[in-house]
């Protein structure tokens, strides 16, 4: 996908320069994030892959990070843009802490700040090529929201990015309910991640599940899901096929 704003000053060389200042397409990308609200807070699942086009180049990228005391941010899309966002948020949290006045940024505030940033960049035709998932708990209230690279933002009980929207959300719509226990929540997320592993070519079998509650953030150690490939249909895949193709 290429965006080009015609800059008509007859200077092709200079145009190339200004074009290279804007994000035109992503290079190293992360795939889906899936997140749900549960009894004590929010659970977020992501794999650790960074694809370079169709190559699964990086296999140890953490795509979910803690923000301040109350929030968790997961990102899919361009990894370098995610790192840039983490720098912005770092500064934001630092300034918030420096006030030292008993007030602190909650997940709602961070979500709205990110919405403003993403939307502003989109208006300048220089987007941060990410879809972000922001979850958190503050004063007993759980919060889960999403912001896309064009600034579309909303809250929900369960969210997913990229392929997760097509493969994971339908499962969540059927099986999510309020007050899931931690074990049930993890099982549900693993079910979604397994489907993504089977069907999303940029997914890898190395995932982390992050949890945020009133107490704080925990990020699990990376682990893999069990997969099953012994379906009958795989033994003789062309058995039912007729014709020349």
């Amino acid at each position, binding site marked *: 996908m290429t965006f080009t704003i015609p800059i008509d000053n007859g200077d092709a060389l200079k145009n190339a320069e200004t074009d290279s200042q804007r994000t035109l397409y992503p290079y190293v990308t992360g795939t889906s994030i899936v997140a749900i609200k549960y009894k004590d807070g929010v659970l977020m699942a992501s794999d650790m892959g960074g694809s370079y086009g169709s190559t699964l180049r990086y296999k140890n990228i953490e795509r979910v990070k803690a923000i301040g005391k109350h929030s968790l941010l997961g990102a899919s899309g361009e990894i370098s843009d995610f790192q840039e966002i983490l720098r912005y948020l770092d500064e934001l949290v630092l300034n918030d802490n420096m*006030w030292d*006045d*008993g*007030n602190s940024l909650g997940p*709602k*505030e961070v*979500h*709205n*700040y990110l919405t*403003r940033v993403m939307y502003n960049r989109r208006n300048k035709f220089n987007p941060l090529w990410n879809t972000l998932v922001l979850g958190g708990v503050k004063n007993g209230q759980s919060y889960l929201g999403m912001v896309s690279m064009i600034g579309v933002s909303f809250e929900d009980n369960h969210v997913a990015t990229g392929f997760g929207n097509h493969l994971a959300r339908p499962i969540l719509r059927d099986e999510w309910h309020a007050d899931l226990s931690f074990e049930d929540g993890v099982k549900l997320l693993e079910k979604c991640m397994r489907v993504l592993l089977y069907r999303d070519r940029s997914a890898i079998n190395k995932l982390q599940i992050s949890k945020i509650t009133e107490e704080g953030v925990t990020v699990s150690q990376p682990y893999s899901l069990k997969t099953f490939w012994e379906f009958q249909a795989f033994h003789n895949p062309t058995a039912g096929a007729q014709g020349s193709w």
Partner: protein
Amino acid sequence: IRAHIRPFKEKTKASKRKSFSVQTLLRNKDEEEAKMFRNQYDTDVTTWSPTGRLFQVEYAMEAVKQGSAAIGLRSRSHVVLASVNKAQSELSSHQWKIFKVDDHIGVAIAGLTADGRVLSRYMRSESINHSFTYESPLPVGRLVVRLADKAQVCTQRSWKRPYGVGLLVGGLDESGAHLYYNCPSGNYFEYQAFAIGSRSQAAKTYLERRFESFNESSREDLIKDAILAIRETLQGETLKSSLCTVSVLGVDEPFHFLDQESIQKVIDTFEKVPEEEEDGGEAEAEAAAAPAEQGGAGDQDVAPMEM
């Protein structure tokens, strides 16, 4: 004493001046010497006096004392701001002295009301910008610091003058209700209750007697105390709802003004109380009124902004 001071020249200078500064600040005989220095070092805000004071800033704080009274008090969950309605003449309407900054922040001013309006506009702007970016109310403590920093700038630029208005800022944040006083000097202080403007000493005396109970006060008692404090500043004039403006904000209550009927109802509950309470109150008020009328600067050796 510096060698270059020439007494005769000083005297001429003093008499030529409109003497606002000299007149209000010369209570204490010990300040004769200071009088000579004042006129030399008070022309602009970026000039220090030999005793380490910025007279222009202190004069700005005098302006606050000339305005009509404004009072603020807070409990754990509510803040009440009240002011006296002073009108230029019988024909005109009264000055608005209390402004809504946001649903959770209000401000009462005393002094140059024009400066107060400008600062209220700044506060509204900051508050709404924060709300837009973070979808969350701006904590009042952070707003007050920005306001104070803005005032400080005017004390350190030769082409500016300090804002001649004191602001009582009441608002909420995560830790509950707060009341702050912002000075033209750029200082700010947090209070349980405070009064500014003319005859505010009478109100302060009343508040000093009661403030320890304010934290646990109910909303109604807080309003009643505010109106009673206003009454103290009126020095015997009958308290009517048309003479005062009262505003409330609280944890589940956005900032709003009380209508005249509600105020009158509260007044009716205590105006009926017989002379005993009123006499006691008035005697104290009279004693406190004397220094208050003179602006209160004469009874301290320390510059007001060092408070």
